């Protein structure tokens, strides 16, 4: 159905892909301004009948922290956060992420907001899912100009965590042993197109599968249940993608 019109939108596909990556865990934390990962986490929780714990850091309702801004990081340091999401102004083939700047650090060409918690969480959260919708040679580069957090570390460096995958608008890469492997290409996209738009080298199997489309059940769950929960934190997104208002209104 690659060239056929879909009965789902990109956001729904990506959320479904990420929900599968989350898998069976206890606690998923989602940072600010991440509506698609938030959708995925809430979807995973609905499928798990209330498990995993989902912490949406932007939300009061879906955020149990009571010990101040450092509790998220303490919690991760305790090994109590299993999945987190990171993006990057640049991401390279070694899994390094750049959230700081391009060009010379002292006199940058482009300045991004900053590293946030990446220089810590990327090391200690077992499953970090890289998420960058824009899949281009501008964002996926041979080598980042600034390493906010490295994709891998020397053996003697304390590192229980790190990247497991990279999700873009075109495909899913898995990450292991310091390299990305093309795991699946999303419906409507091709391997040639992925290669064309990726600035770093990656491995690929002889036959690259297509990313499975979200099942009708999954779409129903997202549109009827998750969408309403999402509306509290991401009202605009919930309205645009799912056409629903805040949870108090029923669609």
């Amino acid at each position, binding site marked *: 159905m690659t060239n056929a019109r879909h009965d789902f939108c990109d956001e729904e596909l990506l959320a479904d892909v990420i929900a599968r990556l989350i898998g069976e865990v206890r606690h998923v934390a989602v940072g*600010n*301004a991440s509506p698609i990962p938030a959708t995925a986490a809430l979807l995973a929780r609905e499928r798990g009948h209330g498990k995993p714990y989902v912490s949406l850091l932007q939300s*009061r309702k879906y955020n149990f*922290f*009571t*010990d*101040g*801004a*450092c*509790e998220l*990081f303490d919690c991760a*340091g305790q090994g109590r956060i299993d999945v987190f999401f990171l993006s990057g102004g640049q991401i390279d083939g070694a899994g390094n992420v750049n*959230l*700081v*700047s391009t060009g010379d*650090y*002292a*006199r*940058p*060409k*482009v*300045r*991004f*907001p*900053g*590293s*946030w*918690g*990446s*220089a*810590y*969480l*990327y*090391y*200690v959260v077992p499953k970090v899912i890289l998420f960058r919708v824009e899949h281009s040679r501008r964002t996926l580069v041979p080598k980042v100009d*600034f*390493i*906010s*957090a*490295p994709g891998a*570390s*020397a053996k*003697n*460096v*304390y590192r229980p965590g790190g990247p497991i995958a990279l999700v873009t608008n075109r495909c899913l890469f898995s990450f292991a042993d310091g390299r990305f492997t093309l795991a699946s290409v999303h419906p409507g996209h091709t391997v040639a197109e992925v290669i064309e738009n990726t600035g770093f080298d990656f491995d690929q199997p002889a036959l690259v599968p297509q990313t499975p489309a979200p099942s009708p059940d999954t779409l129903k769950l997202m549109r009827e249940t998750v969408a309403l929960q999402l509306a509290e934190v991401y009202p*605009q997104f919930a309205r645009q993608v799912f056409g629903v208002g805040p949870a108090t209104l029923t669609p």
Partner: protein
Amino acid sequence: MFQPAKSIDDALAAVTDGCLLVVPREVSGVPMAATRALIRRGVKRLHLVALPTSSLQADLLIGAGCIATLETSAVSLGEFGPAPRFTAAVTSGAIKMMDATCPALHAALQAAEKGVPFMPLRGLIGSDVLKYRSDWKVIDSPFGNTDPIVLLPAIKPDVALLHAPMADCFGNVWIGRQRELATMAHAADKTIATVERIHDGNLLDDPVLAAGTLPGFYVESITLAERGAWPLPLPDHYVADAEHLAEYAVLAATAEGFAEYLERYVYDKRAA
């Protein structure tokens, strides 16, 4: 025992040119009314520590020329896009940027809170965040076997500036879940708070309220500032003024537009 400030300008006297000032993240109660007062007074050469990130507050202070050094983990207007004055100042080299990562700033403030010269932190090794912080050290943990770990020197602010829902006439400030505000106050030499309202009675007399209270012992001054976080949100009290922030994002995109914003919303005392 406690003298409430006559005016916000009196209250801010401790924020002198060149001092080390620590302020909280957007959701923890950002003292925007006090920030506008500092800009009107024309404070200069601040070393601003935004714990651990900032949005409008840092962008305003940078654009108004109040900042010499910025130490934080990120500055962004969130859904309203990049922080324009921050971006311009860093790319032009107008301010000294000390890039950090969130838990490193929390740990450095906690070191001062605990009276220790440093705190250890995992992560960081192999990052350029560490590479460009010559003030951070890496040691081999004496409890491990070639186990490198980063040590962060204590950050001891001259002043902690915060905005909270309420205080009482004994100087006690109710901060609720925003525990990092207590860490800021413990770490800083002086703490200046603006609050939405004055609580009738002593916050420490009620065990439930006391659990979320920063004792007046740590607080230098308190000033009443209704909607003192505007246009930023005060959790559980009011949301961000999205329309205003959108307007800011547009105006601040250029130096001229930013100057116009200052005229309209900062220098014009009626809007302060």
